[in-house]
């Protein structure tokens, strides 16, 4: 997901921690000023921070096509979508800030590699069909996770997710809309669409993180309601939803072992190559270096702007105080 392999803190058995867990079990929301276990706070910072970073880095693969969008309307739609991602990163950073960490601190941790972002954004967008595939598959996978997170226990995170889900509902549809045009278009367009699905299928499955049997941190996060479903549950749901859509498009999911399983009422499918996933997480994905370099450049080259605007605001305030 946008937050993958977030290391979960541990709770303690103090009376406060037990009362805290009872509140969560009763469906209450935890708010910034409420008592919370240190592990809960730290896990949330890691998870919300990683989610925010994913939105910000996630602008880059699609931003790559804004200047090349084929029509004025497609250009406007793509620009609006990438802008939304900046907004979503902003909402999430603000949610994290209620836990006592600043946006600048989080940003610096992204830029020097201490914090991660989703593996998916380390894959390149090579053709216009990738704009379709990213919207359809990547946003589709993200929504799977984000919809249940609207009910997460931490109030500011939950509110950010509600706003994000509302704004994001058009993202997946615009992706599918692009895919429909391509799949029903010229031979070259169809080929482009199939190629995009071939390249994005397994990386999309990786978004949900490794199998739950290898994920040691899930239980505590699920008890705290900051993780709402297991990785495998969401992945299965995603495959079950996406395969019929691919069939509708007349595109082939690149998995020879994909089969409907009547007994479980879902598809059997091949696991992605998890060694590739761990390489991407380590920094060896196709675009890791470019993505981090782009964010570092924006941050470094923006410094004089941020400093100057603050300096101007301070001068204005000082002048106003003198006048008063």
């Amino acid at each position, binding site marked *: 997901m946008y937050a993958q392999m977030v290391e979960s803190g541990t709770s303690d058995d103090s009376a406060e921690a037990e009362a805290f867990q009872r509140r969560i079990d009763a469906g209450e929301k935890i708010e910034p000023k409420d008592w919370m276990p240190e592990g809960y706070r730290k896990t949330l910072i890691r998870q919300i921070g990683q989610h925010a970073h994913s939105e910000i880095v996630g602008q880059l693969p699609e931003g790559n096509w804004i200047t090349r969008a084929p029509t004025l*309307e497609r250009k406007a739609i793509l620009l609006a979508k990438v802008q939304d991602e900046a907004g979503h990163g902003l909402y999430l950073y603000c949610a994290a800030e209620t836990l006592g960490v600043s946006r600048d601190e989080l940003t610096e941790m992204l830029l020097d590699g201490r914090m991660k972002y989703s593996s998916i954004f380390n894959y390149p967008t090579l053709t216009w069909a990738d704009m379709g595939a990213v919207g359809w598959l990547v946003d589709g996978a993200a929504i799977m996770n984000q919809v249940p997170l609207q009910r997460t226990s931490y109030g500011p995170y939950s509110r950010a997710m509600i706003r994000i889900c509302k704004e994001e509902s058009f993202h997946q549809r615009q992706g599918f809309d692009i895919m429909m045009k391509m799949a029903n278009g010229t031979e070259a367009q169809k080929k482009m669409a199939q190629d995009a699905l071939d390249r994005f299928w397994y990386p999309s499955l990786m978004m949900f993180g490794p199998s739950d049997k290898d994920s040691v941190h899930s239980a505590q996060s699920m008890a705290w309601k900051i993780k709402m479903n297991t990785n495998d549950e969401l992945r299965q749901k995603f495959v079950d939803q996406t395969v019929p859509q691919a069939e509708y498009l007349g595109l082939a999911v690149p998995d020879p072992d994909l089969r409907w399983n009547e007994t479980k009422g879902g598809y059997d499918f091949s696991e992605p190559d998890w060694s590739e996933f761990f390489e991407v997480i380590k920094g060896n994905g196709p675009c890791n270096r470019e993505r981090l370099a782009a964010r570092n450049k924006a941050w470094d080259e923006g410094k004089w702007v941020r400093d*100057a605007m603050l300096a101007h605001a301070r001068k204005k305030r000082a002048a106003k105080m003198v006048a008063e």
Partner: protein
Amino acid sequence: MDVFEFLCRMGDNTLVLGSRISEWCGHGPALEEEIALANTALDLIGQTQMWLGLAAEVECRGRTADDLAMLRDVWDFRNLLLVEQPKGDFGQTMMRQYLFDQFHLPYLEALVTSSDSRIAGVAAKAAKEAAYHLERSRMTVIALGDGTKESNNRMQAALDLLWPYAGEMFASDDVDRSLAKAGIAPDPKDLRAQYLEAVGWTMEEATLTIPEGQFCHAGGRTGARHSEHLGHLLSTMQWLQRAYPGATW
């Protein structure tokens, strides 16, 4: 085809500037600034659809706004040289934006009373958006000019670089004169004094100095001689339509 020529000037300005500022998407100095800039780009692309849509309509040759945007070459573009200049640093982008917005708003406001109701309608919508663009770019130029020593130097460099492109906005030609006569559009040269005064106030607040000299580059709005930058912008923007002719997207 004076009206067609005029509509291309309007639409090409917003198209080229909108494309230029969308280059900042994902690369801005702060999230808030980036989101604001994307809003401006979205407005300008929306205005392009209206202006070029109207241009295609008055031309009556079966072309669409997208055809005009994606299938004309450099010599057919009618945008100002100012808006095709590269993005440079954030200061240069905001200076380019301000110098354009300060012209764009009064020009659109004058167009609201155009004798052509279609033009008046587009102008009315665009003017509302341009008013906010100007408010924002003006404030940013002032803040960055006044902010720090470094920012002041950068903004002065941006002004020195871009000022010689400002004059082209007021270089009237026969098209402008004929449209002014018909009450369709104002003659831009009549807006020059007001522009110089407004820019003067802004630069004073920004503690920046307008360069001496009357020289100005020209050739964009007539299409006679664009800068080399436009061709690169077009080859990026038009690539898909050129590479896959006849495909729908």
